[in-house]
């Protein structure tokens, strides 16, 4: 079985055969991979010992190892095919939806529809966890639509602002 695994933007081709042998980019690797609980694993490789926590969330993998968090994707051949057809995600053009990262109260919206904004500019001040949290734009753009009003309570993932 061939997988393409992308960890912190580095791509690895990993083959796992029926007999359990494993190759990384064509090079064989001896790996002792043991499950300690559903997300905790012990890996022994070349006598080196790693304790790793692995979790999957919405198709993204998180690997916590030696105090560091690695994130990435594991794609089998079918998933790779789909991904190439869909084109790359997260492009610099098109619409960007700013959603509430947590439930809270809209304290202020310091922008107006049609306004040009620069990357890092504050779009919404969301009051949550007793803090005024400034939600900023991930890139330059124009505020196309504001879907909430100051004083409004919002749930997590509620669409707040659409940028073009």
């Amino acid at each position, binding site marked *: *079985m061939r997988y393409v695994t992308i960890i912190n933007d580095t791509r*690895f081709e990993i083959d796992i055969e029926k007999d359990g042998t494993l190759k*990384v980019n064509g090079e064989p690797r001896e790996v002792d*991979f043991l*499950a300690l609980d559903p997300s905790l694993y012990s*890996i022994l490789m070349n006598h080196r010992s*790693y304790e790793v926590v*692995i979790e999957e969330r919405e198709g993204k993998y998180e690997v916590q190892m030696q105090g560091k968090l690695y994130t990435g994707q594991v794609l089998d051949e079918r998933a790779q095919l789909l991904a190439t057809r869909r084109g790359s995600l997260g492009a610099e053009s098109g619409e960007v939806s700013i959603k509430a990262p947590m439930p809270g109260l809209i304290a202020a919206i310091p922008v107006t529809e049609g306004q040009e904004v620069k990357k890092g500019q504050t779009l919404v001040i969301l009051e949550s966890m007793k803090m005024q949290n400034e939600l900023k734009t991930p890139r330059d753009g124009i505020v196309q639509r504001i879907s909430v009003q100051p004083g409004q309570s919002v749930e997590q993932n509620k669409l707040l602002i659409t940028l073009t």
Partner: protein
Amino acid sequence: METSQTQIKKVLIANRGEIAVRVIRACRELGIATVAVYSDADRTSLHVRYADEAIHIGPPSPRESYLKIEKILDAAKRSGADAIHPGYGFLSEREDFAQAVLDDGLIFIGPPPDAIAKMGDKQVARETVKAVGVPVVPGTEPGLRDDELFAIAGQIGFPIMVKAAAGGGGKGMRAVQNAEELPDALAIARREAESAFGDGHVYLEKLIEGARHIEFQILADTHGNTIHLGERECSIQRRHQKLVEESPSPFVDPDLRRRMGEMAVRAAQACGYVNAGTIECLVDKDKNFYFLEMNTRLQVEHPVTELVTGLDLVKEQIRIARGRRMSPTENFLTPKVWAMECRINAEDPYNNFLPSVGTISTLLLPTGPGVRVDSGVYSGFTITPYYDSMIAKLICWGDDRPEAMLRMRRALEEFSIMGVKHNIPFHQNLLNSFSFIAGKFDNKFVEERFSMTTYEQPASEEDLETAAIAATLFTHRNRQLAMQVVKSNERDTSNWKWLSRWERVHR
């Protein structure tokens, strides 16, 4: 005069999270029964699990539960508690609460209401300590209108701080560089203060640049003893929220410790203080110090003082509230160890420290020599948006500062929290920064001279590959397990053999 001693048999903790757990632990050790209170959002919280009794006090919003005096007092009555510990935040610095507790014939494990009142009103506090020769930072009284504040701001001179009159913990606090920024800063500060404390009053204070935040722990009993337990260095802050505290401070020499300590004791005595409290100061580059405020409660960062002095401050608080003599009666001038605390917050350091909510899916706590964790969470616990984002405190100590830092690094590496974003990477990077290691920083260090990328060591090719192998085997294994369950007729071995294999991988 000998003050009468009082028995405490059952303590209600008017708080939640790690501090409630901390107080419960002290009570347990003293053989005192404990009562937790909880909102709808906290039924599954650790403090409810650890307490002997738990009483529901209302909806998640603090204003309808943890800030409601009548509900807390009613819970005390229903449970038969004879004393209340307020923790920090919430009602801990409200003199009307302390007074109401006393009026109900209960013991308040904290200072007398009039000491809270004097120190809680920033203007009265400044006048009180100025009268005994304690230096203060130039500023205004609270409660002024915006137009009055605009006028006085010009006289004090920028940069200037806007602070909440009822404040603490950085809420309702803003630094203002010039007159143009003042109107917005006032509006935001008033809004934050209103939502955090139910009181939108603010005041101004001159901002002393390049200053360190250094505070002194005070302990006073009803037998006339008032002492200090040395300093805590709290300059590592972001938006006036402390992130790392240590004791002693790398900036404080024995002479400064003695002088500041004497000042702190005088300030506490000036308001008739009893129980544990903290004198917060700004110290400039030339070691001039200014009184900022007194926190009339236990601090979040009290554990570093506990480790340096060998005292249990919550037990001392209870001793004092019982009318007994506190165990130390001399100022503490010689630190036994070096202690450091990292506040572990559910905040994403890679995204402007945005708070993160959700369920903690995995929690592995560090242990071993020189490590203490005060936590309010567990694996499976859900962090809600109703309360602040601090989920645990990691405290490490060693013979000296380098050993404390090396232990902290090791402990941070052992710490795994999955399911929510957290600031452990921030602490790891901070402990790699040369300025921090050298002890050269002020209270603007994190905001102005620290970046998450400068000290982040890039992952090695080998580690990336190991992580990739781990993620791939994880996926492969889960897929194989799923297929084995589905395609049972395609098994190449007997059902019995297969079952034992299945159990082996599911152990």
